[in-house]
């Protein structure tokens, strides 16, 4: 082994140590991954300092080459480890600072705002669902009706005082805006093919009209639901069951029902149906005028005259019918005092439903 070779060897070893030390120092000063990468390229890249030393190995004597190669590889491995450690540290620092960022969570979120269904639609659907569950089939009828179907067929002949109860909006001739949804009953019964032993359960929801001036409880237009049950053996006892079921379903299970006699031309006997006030649990309030009861439905056994008009024999066919105002139920359920609110279409009102 020559002395010159020995010296060369020592010089290279020094250089390698220098590089190692430099790498250690440089990496300690690196603040970003990019800077780490720059250090790596400067030392380990194709033209890096370490690579240059390895290129220069060829000038060393044969026996030193392996030794120096070994040393260089140790240095390279060491630097790689330093880089990895530095990257890990930086990664941890970055994560820490990332997690330290805080935003003002009290600023409003960006919402995709939904609209809302009209309360009348909601109540109407609820009522129809209840009817369906009780076995009623839902049908429709026209809003412009013939006088005969709206009145005469429902046992309200032309000079009947009940016609004044429902002041009517007429079009030309005998066409009018139906004053209730009851003409649908006539349409169903008249179109029925089995008039001897029919079994039928239908309900209908729709608009009805009266010649009423607009105020807090009246509008010229409103919605009604009407149900009809026809069977050879229908009884009032069944009507009572149905009314109870409806009221409990629409309000609450502990709602009490009071049925009192009343008068409608198309039913006999006729009844008004009250429920225990949903707002004050019968202790008295404005909704029930401190009576504890609020009226929600009209009901009765189909008048024999109605069956005769549609060609059925009231001796063999019986039935009952009942109906209610959707606005009234809606107002009661939501504590709305002025019916006009339902038709103002104020978005601030509608969005609450």
């Amino acid at each position, binding site marked *: 082994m020559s002395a010159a070779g020995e010296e060369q060897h020592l010089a290279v070893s020094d250089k390698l140590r220098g590089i190692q030390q430099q790498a250690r120092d440089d990496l300690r000063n690196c603040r970003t991954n990019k800077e780490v990468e720059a250090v790596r390229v400067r030392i380990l890249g194709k033209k890096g300092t370490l690579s240059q030393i390895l290129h220069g190995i060829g000038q060393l004597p044969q026996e030193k080459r392996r030794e120096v190669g070994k040393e260089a590889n140790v240095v390279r491995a060491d630097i790689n480890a330093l880089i990895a450690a530095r990257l890990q540290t930086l990664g941890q620092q970055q994560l820490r600072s990332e997690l330290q960022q805080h935003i003002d969570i009290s*600023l409003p979120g*960006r919402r995709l*705002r*939904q*609209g*809302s*269904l009209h309360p009348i639609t909601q109540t109407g*659907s609820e009522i129809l669902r209840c009817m369906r569950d*009780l076995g009623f*089939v*839902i*049908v429709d009828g*026209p*809003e*412009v009706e*013939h006088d*005969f*179907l709206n009145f*005469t067929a429902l046992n309200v002949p032309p*000079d009947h*005082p*009940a016609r004044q109860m429902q002041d009517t*909006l*007429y*079009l*030309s001739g*005998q066409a009018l805006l139906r004053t209730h949804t009851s003409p649908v009953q006539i*349409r*169903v019964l*008249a179109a*029925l093919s*089995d008039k001897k032993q029919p*079994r*039928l*359960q*239908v309900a*209908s929801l729709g*608009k009805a009209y009266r010649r*009423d001036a607009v105020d807090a409880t009246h*509008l*010229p*237009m409103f919605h009604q639901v009407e149900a009809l049950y026809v069977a050879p*053996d229908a009884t*009032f*006892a*069944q009507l*009572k*069951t149905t009314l109870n079921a409806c009221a409990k379903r629409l309000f609450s299970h502990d709602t009490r029902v009071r049925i*009192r*006699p009343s008068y409608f031309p198309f039913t006999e*006997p006729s009844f*008004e149906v009250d429920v225990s006030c949903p707002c004050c649990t019968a202790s008295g309030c404005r909704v029930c005028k401190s009576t504890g009861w609020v009226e929600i439905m009209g009901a009765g*056994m189909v*008048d*024999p005259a109605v069956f005769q008009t549609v060609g059925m024999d009231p001796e063999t066919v019986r039935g009952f019918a009942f109906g209610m105002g959707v606005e009234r139920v809606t107002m009661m359920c939501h504590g709305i005092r002025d019916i006009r609110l339902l*038709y103002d*279409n*104020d*978005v601030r009102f509608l*969005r609450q439903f």
Partner: protein
Amino acid sequence: MRINVDCLRRLVALPPSLSIQEIAQRLTLAGLETEVDQEKILDVAVTPNRPDALSHLGIARELSAVLQVPLLGNKPRCQEMQASVDTVAHVTIAHRRACPRFACRVVDGVSVGESPAWLRERLESCGLRPVNNVVDITNWVMLHRGHPLHAYDRDRLARQRERASLIVRPARQGEVLETLDGCTRELSDQDLVVADPQGPLALAGVMGGKRGEVTNQTQSVLLEAAYFTPQVVRGMVQRHRLTTQAGYRMERGCDPAAVVDALDEAARLMQEVASGRAYKGIIDVYPDRIKPAVVAFRPSRFYEISGFSERGVDQRCLLRLFGSLGIETIGRPGNDAVCFSIPTFRPDLTREIDLIEEAMRLLGIDRVPQAPLVVAPRQIVPLQETNTSTLRRIRKALVGQGFCEALTLSLGCLSQHEPFAAAKGIQTAQLHNPLTEEMNVLRTSLLPGLLAAAARNVRHGTATVRLFEIGTVFAAREQPDIPPGTMPGLEARQADETLLLGGVMTGTNGDEGFDREPKPLDFYDAKGVMQELLACLGIDQSLANCPLQFVPLPQSHHHLLHPGRSAALSLCHPERSEGSPHLSKHEEILPRCARQDDKQSVIGTLGQLHPKLAQEYDLPTCPYVFELDVKTLRVMMKQATVHIDPPPRYPAVQRDLAVVVAESVTADRVIDTIRSHKQARAWVEDIRFFDLYRGPSIGQGKKSMGLSLILRAADRTLTDDEVAVLMQEILAKLQTELDAAIRS
């Protein structure tokens, strides 16, 4: 009807312990809805079938039956002079059908003046204003016994042979009567009058006349108590639009048997209060006695209908109940039936079912047991069942896009609806008796109501409004002439009714946040709503064979919407799009008013409201609106079969290109041109527009469109080479067919 409880207690033996609240409740549960008004006053809401309950006596009878307590009423008696009433008055009935009974008394020596306090208070407590003692007595007797009376000044009546001579006759056409309310009324031969030889004195049973009126000078009073046929009185009440206490009772039906008691009580009171002396006897012209109605009643039928059992309520109990209503048993014609004689004060009881109701209400509805419904396993309902699912899906789709559902009145004013009727080519259905001019027609469109609602919201500070409504619009229709009183054909409609979906949008596109600015609405926001709605209904508009297309707005709508920022939704007919299996069915569903020509039909419109209309509705900016036929959507929805594809297995390739074309070339034409290439049809999955640019660099009258083509083959990954070849061919096609320049 207001009832003074003190007076009531004199008519029926009410238990002293029974409070006024309890009385009200018992009446209410028996069918006469009653509220306690003051300490001593009951306010009874009497249904039109119960004229018998329009008096203290009537309520007393009702309570007697409800509570099973006796009536106390004694027959009224009055002292009479020696001279007979026949010497001073005479009555003739010239129309027996309209006036079955006419009775009167004459009271002399009357001094007219203010009524004593007790009488004034009674009247006022019942809601009547005291006038003078004679008038007050007639009014009180009416409130007390239920029968209306009329008082004439006998000295002012024309005489025949020294007697005041009255005749009940039809009015002569054109005859004139000045009634007590100060109106001069022209009468027709449909009216019935009480007259003397000089002319009419009163509209029979409704209101008296000025001539013959009792004044402070009156000394001799002729009191009338008559029974007029309800239909005749009702005719007069309606023709003359005259509501009086007397007419109200007469048109519902008074008791023909009550006239004598009413006259006697009035005469007695006149004696007591106005120092009058009655002539002997009553003139009572009653040629054909009205017989009580006879009604057969089968207890078995009662049990069947009511749900009461014979064990719960036996037949003896039923008969006793009827007895307490004054209904007498007059025979048993068969094994089951009982015949009853109905007192004349209950004109509402004419049929067996009416008696069943009486028994039920007196027994108490709460005593009826409940029974389960028998639900028919298979009902045959002759009407088409309501399809609520379409409406539910439409509502869901729009609510999800931020729309609130509105509800507007179907009534509107002619000037607002006429333009819409004109555009649709329909006749506006007008009301014959509108309540106000603002509500004199049935709506022809949902938009006027929605626009008014939007304007109201904007006025109240909500600038961004999205409203929709589903509702019926109407068109007038030639009506078939049907004789009155006969059943019209069920198919015959009195007006055309079409179910529509309408919507209005104002303000911004709703993309709001504290750090971003929402943009003002434009056409594409509205079109997007529509497309999303169709997609939610399963009507895929991107399908090449979709028969629904957006087309330019027809001329007929140019006065409603901005012609350049609006479109119509059109349903194409079979001739135009071939090969669509379901198109022929659309023929029948088209709304009558929507037919445009033989190739396509407009089923809806959307776009910006015409500036002139926006001004009319007081809207600061022009909103976007839409209106669609729901029935068409419903049919299309049904035909849109739900077919779900798995996600594609092979990757897609995206290629962007920018083409410069003339302004007149629409996006649709670019798409059609690309899709007309056979290979493109197979591979181009989607074409998305990402840029639209106009500027000096591309020249006037031109625009640059940036579009992305998404290409994919179903069975393999496309190679760069084959995509490049296709793109070349597409560009060439665009260049030759659309004269497009390709921007690099």
